[in-house]
C-alpha cells in the first residue's frame, strides 16, 4: 500500500468524520438555532418557581427568546429571584408579564413572557414587576374541592363529579404540577 493511496483513504475517512459531525450538529442537534449572540439580563421574583431549572427556555408567543440563568432564594421577602437572559434582538415593554408554564403534560417548566403595552422597554438589570407563579396541583385541587363542598350539600353527585371535574380542569387549564399527584 503506497503512500498516496493511504493518504487518499485517510483523507476520505477524516472527511466522512467531519460530515458526520456536521450532520449531527445541523440536523440532529439545534446548532443552527442556538443562541450565540449578545443578551441582556432582567430579574423576576416568584413566590413559587415549581420545578424551573437554570438553562430552561424563556419563550414569548411560543418562540425561544432567552434562557434562565440563575434562580436564587431571597430571604428578605422569602421569594425566588429568577435571572433571565434575553436575546438583544428582542425588546420587551417594562410591564411584561413573566409566567411559569409547563411544556406539555409531562414536560419541563419554562418562563413565558407576555408583552404589555408600555412604551418604555426593559433594560439590562431591570426587574419584571408582574409575575405569575407556577401552579401547584395540590393547592388547585384543594381550592376546587373546598369551593365544591361549600355548594349545596344535598347534591350527592358532588363527590362523584369531583374527579371528572378535576380532569376537565386539567385538560382545559394551562398547567399543573402533576408529578406529585400521579405518584
Amino acid at each position, binding site marked *: 500500500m503506497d503512500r498516496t493511496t493511504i493518504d487518499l483513504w485517510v483523507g476520505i*475517512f477524516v472527511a*466522512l468524520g467531519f460530515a458526520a459531525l456536521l450532520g449531527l450538529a445541523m440536523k440532529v442537534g439545534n446548532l443552527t438555532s442556538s443562541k450565540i449572540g449578545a443578551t441582556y439580563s432582567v430579574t423576576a421574583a416568584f413566590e413559587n418557581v415549581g420545578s424551573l431549572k437554570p438553562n430552561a427556555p424563556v419563550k414569548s408567543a411560543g418562540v425561544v427568546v432567552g434562557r434562565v440563568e440563575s434562580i436564587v432564594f431571597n430571604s428578605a421577602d422569602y421569594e425566588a429571584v429568577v435571572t433571565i437572559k434575553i436575546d438583544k434582538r428582542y425588546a420587551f415593554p417594562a410591564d411584561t408579564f413573566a409566567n411559569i408554564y409547563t411544556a406539555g403534560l409531562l414536560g419541563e417548566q419554562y418562563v413565558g413572557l407576555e408583552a404589555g403595552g408600555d412604551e418604555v422597554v426593559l433594560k439590562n438589570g431591570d426587574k419584571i414587576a408582574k409575575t405569575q407563579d407556577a401552579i401547584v396541583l395540590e393547592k388547585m385541587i384543594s381550592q376546587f374541592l373546598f369551593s365544591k363542598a361549600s355548594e349545596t350539600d344535598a347534591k350527592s353527585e358532588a363527590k362523584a363529579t369531583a374527579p371528572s371535574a378535576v380532569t376537565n380542569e386539567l385538560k382545559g387549564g394551562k398547567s399543573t404540577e402533576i408529578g406529585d399527584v400521579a405518584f
Partner: protein
Amino acid sequence: MTQSNLLASIANELRGIGHRMIERTWRLGVGARLFALAIIYSGESFKRFHLTLREIYFTGVMSLLIIVVSAFFVGMVLALQGYNTLQKYGSSEAIGVLVALALVRELGPVVTALLFAGRAGTAITAEIGLMKATEQLSAMEMMAVNPIARVIAPRFWAGVISMPILASIFSMVGILGGYLVAVPLIGVDDGAFWSQMQANVDFRLDIVNGLIKSFVFGVACTMIALFEGFDAPPTAEGVSRATTRTVVISSLTVLALDFVLTSFMMVV
C-alpha cells in the same frame, strides 16, 4: 482438612491475592510510564506526519466497515424497540429523540470504543508484540532510533484521532438507520421525527459531550492496546494472551470511564 491446613490454605489464598494486586499495581505503573513517554516523544509523530497517517489508515479506515454496519443495525434495533414501548403512551413521534439521544450520548462513544478495542486494539497489540518478539524493536534501538517515538507514539495519536471520527460516524449512521425503520417502515411522520429530535438534542450538552467521551475512550483503548503489546512475553502464547487482555481490559475500562464521565456530565 485439619484446622492448621485450613488456616494455611486461607493464608496462601490471601498471599496470592496480595501478590496479584501488587503485580497489577506495578503493571499499571509501567503502563503509566509508557503513556508519559509516548506523549513526551510525540514530536516525530507530527513532524513526520506520514507515520501517523499510515496508522490512522490501519486503525481508523480499516475499522470503518464494522463501525458502519454495526451502527446501522444498532440504530434500526433502537427504533424498533423504542417504537414498541413509545406507542403504548401515544408518544411514537418521540422515536427520533430516543434514537438520537441514546446514540449520541452513550451508544456512539461506548459501542465504537468496544468495537475499536476488538478490531484495531487487538491488531495493534499483536503487531507490537510480534515486533518485540522478533527483536525488531531491539534492532531499532541498536540503530539509535527511539522505538517509542517511531512505533508507539504514531499509533497512539492515530487511535486518539480515529476514535472521535468513528464515534461521530457511528452516531450519524445509527440515526439514519433509525430513520429508515421509523419513517418508511413504521410510518412515523418524517417532519415530527427530525423536529422533535432537533428540539431535544443539544449540541453542547449532548454531541460535544459524546465527542469528549470518545476522545477519552480513544486514549484509554489505544494506550491499553499499545501497553499490552509492548509488555507481552516474546512468545506466541504470550502475544495471543496479550491480545485477549487488550479486549477484556479495554472493555472494562471503557464501561467504567463511561460511568465516571456520565456522572460528571449530567446536569441535574
